């Protein structure tokens, strides 16, 4: 087993991986940019090393700087988290060349599944059903136009090099295509360093269902069942759950077998996710392989009882899978809500700034994978994800109630977040019924605004006034002006024993 792992990421996922390292007796190394000295991942690691300026290209995407940090700290392996370099085969290739273990698939498999077009070709040959789409990626607007006409509008525009909704757009007509392709290419260039885009048929009212895979380096692979991730805004998931309300045992078995087939034909190892679109008639289409630990991996961990980061590290160190498909089952229900610094009232625009105060929800069946703290500054340079709130319960109904309660007692003050919005999705009758489609938000939550009645407003005013009154009475204790007065300073004169 490794003695030291460098985590080439930041935020909640870096912390998640560092905690797994600590549990396994492995030392962790954080890398950070110049503006991240105060970031929580730096505080969580055993060692930390600055790798460059704030701009991601100078730091978290800087392969040379990260490799140098690995050498300097003597780490034997790199965990890339998600985003940044996680699906960059050049980074994996460089690690292989330098004798560093990349915790993920090898560069060859990464290159294949990371290229949406190449991976379509391989899977199509195996008889796996795909959504009609372009045969090749493109950076040419005219080529996109003629391909879009062949496929038929509406079409979905995607960045060829990555996921996470970056660069993704629905294009309804010929007239909208040029602007959409140009904007998509710019976003793809910024986010992934490759402007290539790709078009496919847009399927209306689908569900997004994906299967978690674990494959070792010895030819063994299992799936850990599905996650449904249909609740999306800006084509990016914000609520995920397992199991899906749309699958029965038969469909689950069939989709799981297809997912394993995809992994087998791609020569894929370590943890990965096979994504499908599922239509209302139970037809499912292979979308892509996400060659990394997913943001939403905790829901699988909660229902399967397998720690996926532990598994990634053990597989990367050469261990054989220590369980088989028959050992796995789903128990209960888990939901994850992604907490972003963004404003749901103005098109989910990211919201940077200082978190003045926050308090994490706790309790039975509540897990909070968090990358921030009271007093930290959310930067404009990086993805606005703050944390992930996960609840587990034996039934979906209790799981939803537990999530709603946890979201209501989760203050994050100073910046805008989507917490209130997430709460209102979870308690929506259609969500509770399991009617979750990828168009859920535009259909059920258009022009969402938080409801504030006069009674609540008055109670809030009372709260503000109590606070202001206390601030006025506050005494300065040992130079820390933010401290609440200590009893020692307010008791007056007294002596012990009298």
């Amino acid at each position: 087993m490794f003695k030291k792992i460098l985590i080439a990421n930041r935020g909640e996922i870096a912390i998640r991986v560092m905690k797994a390292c600590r549990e396994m007796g492995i030392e962790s190394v954080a890398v950070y940019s110049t503006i991240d000295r105060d970031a929580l991942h730096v505080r969580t690691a055993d060692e930390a090393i600055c790798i460059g300026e704030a701009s991601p290209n100078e730091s978290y995407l800087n392969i040379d700087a990260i490799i140098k940090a690995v050498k300097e700290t003597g780490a034997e392996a790199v965990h890339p988290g998600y985003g940044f370099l996680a699906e960059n085969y050049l980074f994996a290739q460089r690690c292989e060349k330098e004798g560093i273990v990349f915790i993920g698939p090898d560069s060859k498999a990464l290159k294949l599944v990371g290229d949406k077009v190449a991976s379509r070709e391989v899977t199509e040959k195996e008889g796996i059903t795909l959504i009609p789409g372009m045969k090749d990626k493109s950076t040419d607007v005219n080529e996109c136009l003629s391909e879009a006409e062949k496929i038929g509008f509406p079409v979905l525009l995607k960045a060829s090099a990555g996921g996470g909704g970056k660069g993704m757009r629905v294009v309804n007509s010929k007239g909208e295509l040029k602007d959409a392709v140009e904007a998509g290419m710019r976003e793809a260039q910024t986010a992934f360093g490759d402007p290539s885009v790709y078009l496919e048929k847009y399927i209306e009212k689908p569900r997004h269902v994906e299967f978690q895979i674990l494959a070792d380096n010895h030819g063994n692979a299992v799936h850990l069942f599905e996650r449904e991730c249909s609740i999306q805004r800006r084509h990016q998931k914000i609520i995920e759950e397992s199991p899906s309300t749309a699958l029965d045992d038969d469909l689950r078995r069939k989709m799981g077998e297809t997912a394993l087939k995809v992994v087998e034909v791609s020569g894929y190892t370590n943890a990965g996710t096979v994504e499908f679109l599922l239509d209302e008639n139970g037809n499912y289409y292979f979308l892509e392989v996400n060659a990394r630990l997913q943001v939403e991996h905790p829901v699988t961990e909660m229902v399967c009882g397998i720690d996926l980061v532990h598994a990634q590290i053990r597989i990367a160190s050469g261990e054989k899978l220590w369980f088989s498909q028959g050992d796995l089952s789903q128990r209960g229900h888990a939901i994850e809500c992604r907490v972003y610094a963004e404003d749901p009232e103005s098109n989910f625009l990211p919201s940077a700034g200082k978190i003045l105060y926050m308090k994490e929800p706790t309790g039975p069946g509540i897990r909070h994978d968090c990358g921030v703290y009271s007093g930290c500054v959310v930067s404009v340079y990086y993805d606005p994800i703050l944390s992930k709130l996960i609840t587990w319960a034996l039934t979906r109904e209790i799981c939803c109630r537990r999530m709603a309660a946890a979201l209501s007692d989760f203050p994050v003050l100073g910046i805008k977040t989507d917490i209130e919005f997430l709460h209102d999705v979870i308690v929506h009758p259609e969500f509770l019924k399991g009617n979750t489609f990828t168009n859920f938000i535009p259909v059920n939550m258009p022009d969402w605004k938080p409801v504030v009645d006069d009674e609540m407003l008055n109670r809030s005013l009372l709260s503000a006034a109590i606070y202001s009154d206390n601030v006025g009475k506050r005494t300065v204790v040992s130079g820390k002006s933010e401290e609440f007065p200590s009893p020692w300073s307010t008791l007056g004169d007294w002596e012990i024993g009298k």
Partner: protein
Amino acid sequence: MDFEYSYDGKTFLVKIDGDSSGGYKAVIADKEYEFTASNISLNEFSILLNRKNMKAYVAESDDGVFVHIEGRVIKFKKPGAGNGGFGGAGGEFGVKDEISTPMPGKVVKIIVSEGDRVEAGQSLVIVESMKMENEIKSPTAGEVVSVNFKNGDLVEPGQTIIKLNPSDAD
């Protein structure tokens, strides 16, 4: 003590009197409240109002007081504070003729030029923040008076990217 807060364009006066044991009397717009409050920290307390328990979390910035109560966050502006970062075009507190971004970012594309006639809702500029592109649309019909940034420039909140002369017909 008297405190003033504004919310949604309205100003509220709260008269509050606390005794040494956490008992309070307060008046908001002639409505009287009597309750007790118990602090866990400066930011977190419980209020018992007619036996009903409410958990409140409060924090303040330079321009406002944030209150979290029953799952909702309300931001009150302190009297005399400016627009406090809500200066985006067409926003609640926005100025209609000066187009700015509510957060720092990079100008990726200026769509209009000086002298152009624009319609309400027309895209004026694309600004990238936190790896997402955001189109800033015109809050009004009018004419573009000046364009103060070019593609690739970094822009801070509140800086006027584009100045418009709204047309009276709007």
